[in-house]
């Protein structure tokens, strides 16, 4: 049996630090919102001429008076991702750009993807994203409350909160782009992390009923160990699937799968070191679950 409980305090300190750093990053560094949430225009361009490269594209686009322009390679050497604010929300901007680029590059390029999100839509998408995440956290909280006691609910929600904040913290640290699929990833992380926590909690509750003489400190450790091989196997298979998406699923899914990979790692960790330590600190005992049984 591994003595997970020996490090409860150490890892609580680590988690608190991570959360504080992440919050500071989110406040001071902010998130790198993509056009979904900030508004603007995105063009994925494929070239078949070496004359077209990041610097020549940047030159051309900055001459067009589009506001802030960013040009990046996207996956392969021939693919570029161009993003700009489209401040004045010009109507025929794509057509104008095509005419402009035709002059310099002829027809040696082609637009593989064009996205244009107006300020109104981006504000709405951001709002519904925030609502979705808050709503999912609330519903999880209520669900666990119904299924377990409030101490468990608090532990689970703190673990979820940790996973979401730290994942977003990593995105802030590396200025990774937040778009619609990242919101999907965060929600899935919420589901996954919950899933992991619930399995351990279910065992804790079962053991609480079984043993009246074992303290919660010891009991959580027993429960973690009993479910450990399941935790490892499920995390492993999920990670294998996610790594497959990350490496082979194409550029568009990279951000999504990265967020999920981070989420699975944090989620597994938090189920052990946050959710359970909350039970210990709240001195959950056999009485807690027996009271629950009586009231049912």
């Amino acid at each position, binding site marked *: 049996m591994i003595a997970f409980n020996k490090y409860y305090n150490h890892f609580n300190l680590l988690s608190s630090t991570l959360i504080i750093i992440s919050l500071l990053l989110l406040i001071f560094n902010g998130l790198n919102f993509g056009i979904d949430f900030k508004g603007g225009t995105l063009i994925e361009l494929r070239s078949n001429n070496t004359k077209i490269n990041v610097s020549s594209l940047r030159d051309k686009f900055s001459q067009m008076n589009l506001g802030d322009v960013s040009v990046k390679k996207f996956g392969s050497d021939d693919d570029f991702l161009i993003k700009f604010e489209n401040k004045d929300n010009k109507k*025929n901007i794509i057509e104008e750009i095509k005419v402009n680029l035709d002059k310099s590059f002829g027809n040696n390029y082609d637009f593989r993807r064009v996205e244009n999100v107006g300020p109104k839509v981006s504000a709405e998408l951001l709002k519904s994203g925030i609502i979705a995440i808050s*709503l999912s956290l609330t519903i999880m909280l209520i669900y666990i409350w119904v299924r377990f006691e409030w101490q468990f609910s608090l532990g689970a929600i703190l673990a979820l909160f940790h996973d979401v904040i730290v994942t977003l913290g990593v995105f802030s640290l590396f200025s990774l782009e937040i778009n619609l699929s990242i*919101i999907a990833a965060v929600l*899935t992380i919420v589901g996954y992390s919950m*899933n992991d926590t619930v399995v351990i909690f279910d065992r804790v509750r079962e053991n609480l009923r079984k043993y009246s003489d074992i303290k919660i400190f010891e009991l959580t450790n027993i429960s973690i160990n009993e479910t450990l091989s399941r935790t490892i196997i499920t995390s492993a298979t999920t990670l294998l699937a996610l790594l497959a998406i990350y490496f082979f699923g194409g550029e568009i899914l990279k951000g999504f799968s990265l967020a999920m990979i981070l989420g699975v790692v944090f989620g597994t960790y938090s189920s052990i070191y946050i959710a359970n330590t909350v039970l210990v600190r709240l001195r959950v005992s056999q009485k807690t679950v027996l009271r629950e049984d009586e009231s049912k």
Partner: protein
Amino acid sequence: MLYFSKLRIVFITIFSLLFIFIASSNLFKFDDSFFNKKINLGLDLQGGSYLLLEIDNNPVIEQKLQNLTTTFKNFFKDKDIKLNNIRIDNQNIFFDVSEEIKQKVIDIFQDENSDINPYYPRFKSHQLEIEDLGLNLKINFSRQGLINLKTSSQDQAIEIVRRRVDEVGTNEPNILKRGNNRILVELPGLDDPARIKSLLGKTANLTFRFVTLNDEDRFGVEKLDYEDGTPSVNVSKRIIISGENLLDAQPKMDTQNNQTIVSFTLDRVGAKRFGKATSTGIGKQLAIVLDGKIISAPVVRDTIASGAGQISGGFTFQSATDLALLLRSGALPAPLEIIEERTVGPDLGQDSINAGMIALSIGFLLVIVFMFVKYRFFGLITNVTLIINLFILLGVLTLFEATLTLPGIAGIILTVGMAVDANVLIFERIKEELKDESNNILAFDGGYTKSRTAILDANITTLLAAVILFFMGSGPVKGFAVTLGVGIFTTLFSVYFIARLLTSLYVTKNKNNGKLI
């Protein structure tokens, strides 16, 4: 938990085979009359254009208020009530009445069966709200009034949008209402929406009006610009004919001067009015006004009684074709703005499908190998279950003709990774049971029973997340929520029916061969 009746086994087998068959209909072409359902590919996979249009209802509201002021004047004139100083400001109508009859006017507006302020019997709310500001009365649209106005202009607009898109002739367009002031247009296979965008961007409000030299006129005068930049002129507000009077419009080549023109024919009312106007207005300039700009203003030389005419204005063949199309399809009730556009080229879509399939195959293979190495024979059972699960998932998506998107494929891959969880929970529990239980049957039975709450809770939480995502997410992300959510149900089915059946068959046969797992 391990007992299966013969009937049940037959049922499970038939059910699985049925879904494998349905799923495979995506790969093989069956006779349409036999089975013709297929998974739809999202625009991000098959390529195409997604346009979200917003209707700007402000001009409609102003126009409606303008009409209402006339209605009010006439209505109250019949009742011998004089409305003074009636005016429109910031989407409100203001007018003054003498103090004695003020209450009477308010009562007329607030009467449940009011002739001038309808809707109450149907919506329990009037169309208009009246407010006493002391010095004058203020009238504006109520919430219900605005909703009805928006819905009706959305109904008209979607009809016109549909006609215009159909005229261009794209492949199976999808045109839907969003909220009460938006229209979603999905155009599969279209990788350059420039033409559609320019067609949808025009209101196409056509009027024929006389140019006047005076600044005053019985109907009012406005100064309008020419499309081509010729200095602006005064045009009467009196409309001779409008786009509604057109029966048909076609681009043509004028053989006399080699110009492209748009020829049109008028309906009976239009022809009559056009004939009358051209007979009395010989020598005058008749301005052809489209969306507030003069296309051309030819001088009337003859009475045109045939109800046919032509518009010239330095068109190219393309611009004449587009104008004819716009005139045929009719004017939009209000201007549309494209507030969101997402276009994916077909080759990027194909690349995404390929990448998704490769990721799915590799992810699947990794999980299968992992499970086999870890659990040997039971890993094999899990893997068979996983494969059938995948087929059932695809089968359900086919049955509902769901739309598969790139995030949707990611959802399937994720389902593969997470689907083994339930089996792992069960197998690990059985292992624990076997520590102090030598009877294989009892241990397996216990493993299944005792792991049930954890499995249920774990899946419900993921399902909750998927449901929220489905309702809050948009576009491709919705596809992810669908595959993730459906995947949970198919996983539970395959774990509790297929995997358990296979396990039970194996365990009952080998119950005396020591610890089985």
